């Protein structure tokens, strides 16, 4: 009698475990784990929006090159619209969707020991300025800003051309560089560790982030849904909280 009860209990437990496993399996097939190639500036915010996806963060230009070389990504989220449109023209991704915006700032050492107060102070002799390389979205934006301000000579003066915006940021955080050009959202991730100098509004480039689904993805539908999700109120709130700007400015 006792044994029988035990047997029944085991059966119940076993079947519920099986059912749970089946359910879990079902939810897996419903919502696959996506691989998202995303701009380095999205490093902190995207996992807050979807913690399940697998992310590869880097310079958007490097990620685009990797997608061109056939690396298995499901979604490409770029810090500009040019790169996803370039891939679109090659037939590699779906139509890019603009989902957020940003602006450029200058980060400097905490406490501002060199008394830098504006972008023109960067012309001072002997300063170590870092920026991203041309081709990296933030590098191109930086060049655009400097050109508008008539400070293009600063490009040649930069002591390092970095591969993505977080590399620029880390050089200033570590104190190896005196100033670097990054997005406002990057500066926000290291609040208290760096100082921030704003750039004139008239010089600000239009920084737009665009996402596209990779056509060779095994989860194309899920990838498209994921991108649509970026436009939901919830996702937009997270982006806003991280300092990103709404699309219509």
């Amino acid at each position: 009698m006792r044994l029988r009860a035990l047997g029944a209990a085991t059966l119940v437990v076993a079947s519920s475990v099986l059912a749970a496993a089946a359910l879990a399996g079902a939810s897996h097939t419903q919502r696959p784990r996506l691989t998202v190639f995303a701009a380095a500036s999205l490093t902190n915010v995207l996992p807050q929006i979807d913690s399940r996806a697998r992310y590869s963060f880097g310079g958007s230009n490097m990620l685009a090159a990797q997608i061109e070389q056939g690396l298995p990504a499901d979604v490409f989220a770029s810090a500009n619209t040019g790169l996803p449109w370039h891939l679109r023209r090659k037939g590699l991704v779906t139509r890019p969707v603009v989902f957020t915006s940003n602006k450029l700032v200058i980060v400097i050492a905490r406490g501002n020991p060199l008394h830098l107060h504006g972008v023109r102070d960067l012309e001072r002799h002997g300063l170590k300025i870092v920026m991203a390389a041309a081709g990296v979205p933030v590098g191109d934006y930086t060049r655009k800003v400097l050109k508008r301000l008539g400070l293009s000579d600063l490009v040649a003066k930069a002591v390092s051309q970095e591969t993505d915006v977080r590399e620029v940021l880390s050089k200033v955080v570590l104190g190896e560089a005196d100033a670097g050009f990054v997005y406002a959202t990057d500066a926000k991730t290291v609040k208290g560790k760096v100082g921030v100098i704003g750039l004139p509004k008239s010089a600000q480039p239009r920084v737009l982030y665009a996402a596209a689904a990779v056509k060779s993805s095994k989860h194309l539908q899920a990838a498209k849904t994921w991108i649509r999700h970026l436009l939901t109120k919830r996702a937009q709130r997270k982006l806003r909280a991280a300092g990103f700007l709404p699309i219509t400015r």
Partner: protein
Amino acid sequence: MFAATAVALAFLLLPIVAIFARVSPGELVAQLSRPVVTDALVVSLKTSAIAQALVLLLGTPTAYLLATRRFRGHSLMVVLVELPLVLPPAVAGIGLIAAFGRFGLLGEQLNAFGIQLGLTQAAVVIAVAYVSSPLYIRQAIATFEAIDPNLVAASRTLGAGPARTFFRVVLPPRAAVSPPARHSRSRAGWASSGPRSCSRAASRA
């Protein structure tokens, strides 16, 4: 054994072949005229040449000491010398910044002399030296250990001082002095030191 060698060779050569399959030699030559490319090449050549000279200068006596003397802490020293080999590049990079950067352990002292290494070519030299010296020292220890101690002893009894013995007996790759074949072969390896022995050690590591 031959099959394994063939696989290993293919594995090591395939990426290099693939690069040349992708970029045609004509395109490669055309790229060479771009200032960005020549700049990069000049910086690479200059910094590695300086780094290798430093490694040679400081690494050779170190390797000789570790190969010929036995003392307390000898194995520990060998381990410490080889430690950078197993560090992931990112860790090595952060370590170098923590040591030589503006706010690094030596940063203040260097700053006092007006030296700031970060983001300069001197920093490249340091990084290259840091990565390549364990490879060199390791190989050099092995080569020094392979030298017949009798040859050294003979040189000394014949009246040559330690320095002369080192430069005339230990260092040169000498076919003239014909020790057992094993030695002459390892000396030949020594003669072709630098990149080749480095890469050999690297593939072993």
